[in-house]
């Protein structure tokens, strides 16, 4: 299958600190890639580079064959969507967060779509008007995730999105990811430390001290 993302010899250096080096990777459309590795090894940095939130200091990234430096970052990020490790919600209510993807596209928020999305992650539709300060950690994580998929991206970059969630929440979040992967053909790159998620991985990469190796 044709590669949706290609990383050629990516390096990232801040001052004298070499955070990532020699990272090459080809991601086929509709791949589900699991990334693991010790804390501080550069996993988040790699995903942020792929999301164009940081620019690699060496190498290049191709998205559907085009160098991402030639693509407008704003449009690109709508297609290659990064979901933060420990996301913060903004504004006052859940609706403020779910309205954002519509607002940036100059579209009137589709309340039905928002309610449907809440339902998929097991939250009642009355949550739209709930204050973000009243949400539990797992609820915040789920709201943050549906922000990323209000408009379905081509690639979803997930940074430890199930960390700190209980089994029930983990299952809901993983089902949601699986749903977008199989039913909407979304390519997934997911960082995790979770044993069972690693065990079930179809393609597993490990990053150690800024270097990448393919494990299976």
């Amino acid at each position, binding site marked *: 299958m044709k590669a949706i993302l290609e990383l050629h010899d990516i390096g990232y250096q801040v001052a004298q600190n070499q955070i990532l080096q020699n990272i090459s990777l080809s991601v086929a459309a509709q791949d589900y890639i699991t990334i693991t590795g010790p804390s501080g090894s550069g996993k988040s940095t790699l995903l942020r580079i792929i*999301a*164009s*939130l*940081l*620019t690699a200091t060496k190498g290049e990234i191709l998205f559907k064959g085009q160098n991402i*430096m030639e693509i*407008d*970052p*704003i*449009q690109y*990020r*709508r297609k290659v*969507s*990064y*979901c*933060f490790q420990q*996301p*913060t919600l*903004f504004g006052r209510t859940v609706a403020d967060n779910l309205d*954002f*993807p519509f*607002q*940036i596209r100059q579209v009137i928020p589709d309340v039905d779509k928002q309610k449907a999305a809440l339902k998929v992650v097991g939250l009642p539709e009355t949550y739209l008007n709930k204050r973000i300060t009243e949400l539990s950690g797992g609820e915040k994580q789920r709201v*943050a995730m549906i*922000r*990323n998929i209000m408009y379905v991206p081509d690639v979803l970059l997930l940074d430890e999105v199930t960390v700190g969630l209980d089994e029930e929440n983990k299952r809901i979040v993983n089902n949601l990811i699986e749903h977008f992967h199989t039913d909407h053909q979304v390519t997934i790159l997911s960082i995790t430390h979770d044993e069972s998620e690693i065990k079930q991985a179809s393609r597993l990469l490990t990053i150690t001290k800024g270097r990448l190796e393919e494990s299976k």
Partner: protein
Amino acid sequence: MNLDVNNWSLTLAMLLVMIALWIGYREKLGIDREIIIGVIRAVIQLFVVGYLLKYIFKVNNVFLTFAMLLIIIFNASWNAQKRSNGMTNALVISFVAILVSTGVTLGVLILSGAIKLIPSQVIPISGMIASNSMVAIGLSYRSMNTQFRDQRQSVLERLALGGSLRDASIGILRESIKTGMAPTIDSAKTVGIVSLPGMMSGLIFAGVDPVHAIKYQIMVTFMLLSATSLGSVIACYMAYRNFYNTRKQLKESASED
């Protein structure tokens, strides 16, 4: 008008400086040097300005008046820029913001006939407008720097979701503009109750009927609202892009390239 502080009274008034010096000494504030430098600078600057204005008013030449206005605006920009914490292009941004806010405000005042296009009216009024715009812009810069630091994560989230730089910064922009305007709005609310502001006090002091004096103060209130809002809006909208690089990524601060 019979207003003249004679040099002898002024010298005696120096005693007031002694009070400040004495407090500084007693309380070990270590500011005696600062106070003395401050006093000397104030006296020299004011004498220079006094004679300069006298000359400009007498010559009454349009070019000279505009040159003076530009100097005022440049000085105000220089001071506003200092509060930006090394932001790129802060001087240019401040200059444009103060030039436009002063120009528009002054233009309206002149066209409406509130003041006349003569140096003795245009120059002091421009000074008031520019200095208030300067303070507002300085406050806006400070607020922007603090917010981009404190709200870093939520700005990043908005960018990651595909928001434009404006989408990611709009909350910070609004807050910074409000912060710049806040002192003017506050003082508009308390004017006359808490303080008798400079313009009005000066006129009353000079023997003008208080009812006439307040009309000028009302004009000043209006013009400062316009000056600070225009100054803050222009400066904030020109400055926020400094917090991002050309790849539309959030930088560590607005000063690096």
